[in-house]
């Protein structure tokens, strides 16, 4: 079975690499619509990552919410605002190089420190599989208060969005 494991791990690594590449495209492409498509790719890659973490439910939620809902919103917004594919317009401002340098520095440092640390692995959580039922229980029992709060927040945000987006005539 180790062959399968190798394959799976290889696939997973490929997925992450694709995701990163897509993310780079998101921040670098000139055509904002292509950026949106790349972002979709990123989100799918993240979903794959979730699957690799045995959080299938969560992966599906990711697709349903992000790809289904949020991305549609984003694309709509892109459509409603103009000059999408006008590649003559510079899409980055003047501080791109310096911030790139800074962030690269940061990443090097970050990766170094992450590798240096030794993570202790909790066997119990490794064994446990978290499916919809468990999550539901968690939401309804010990996280019920934040759950309610978050739903209120959501409603408020949506109402606000409607009021903001309403055209004036």
């Amino acid at each position: 079975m180790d062959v399968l494991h190798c394959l799976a791990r290889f696939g997973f690594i490929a997925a992450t690499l694709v995701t990163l590449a897509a993310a780079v495209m998101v921040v670098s492409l000139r055509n904002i619509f292509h950026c949106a498509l790349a972002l979709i790719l990123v989100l799918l890659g993240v979903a794959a990552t979730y699957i690799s973490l045995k959080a299938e439910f969560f992966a599906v939620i990711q697709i349903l919410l992000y790809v289904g809902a949020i991305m549609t919103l984003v694309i709509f917004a892109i459509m409603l605002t103009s000059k999408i594919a006008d590649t003559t317009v510079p899409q980055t401002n003047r501080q791109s190089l310096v911030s790139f340098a800074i962030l690269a520095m940061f990443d090097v440092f970050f990766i170094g420190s992450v590798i240096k640390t030794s993570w202790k692995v909790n066997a119990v959580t490794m064994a446990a599989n978290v499916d919809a039922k468990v999550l539901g229980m968690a939401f309804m029992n010990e996280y019920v208060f934040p759950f309610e709060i978050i739903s209120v927040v959501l409603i408020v945000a949506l109402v606000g969005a409607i009021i903001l987006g309403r055209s004036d005539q």
Partner: protein
Amino acid sequence: MSGIPVSYYVIFSGLLFSIGLYGVLVRRHVVGILMSIEIIINAANINLVAFSRYVAAKPEMGQVFAAFVIVLAASAAAVGLAIVLSVYRNRRTIYTDEINLLKW
């Protein structure tokens, strides 16, 4: 896939995060910035889920909070895009460095 060490996920999310941050710092297009923010949020979520799987006290903890984060991201996207639209309607531009009324 228990073979993959947690540090791998952490690095992955860190890179994703910094890419998103780069986008936020650099993009002129407001929607671009919003998308970069989505990337950042996803990076954070990956961390949550990964840690909830590897080193958390309870297995579902991280996922619960990741779910909260997703909801917040959704509302942020909704409000943000609504703002973008109204700004575009009033100022006819969606480039951040042209929306500088606060300057003086």
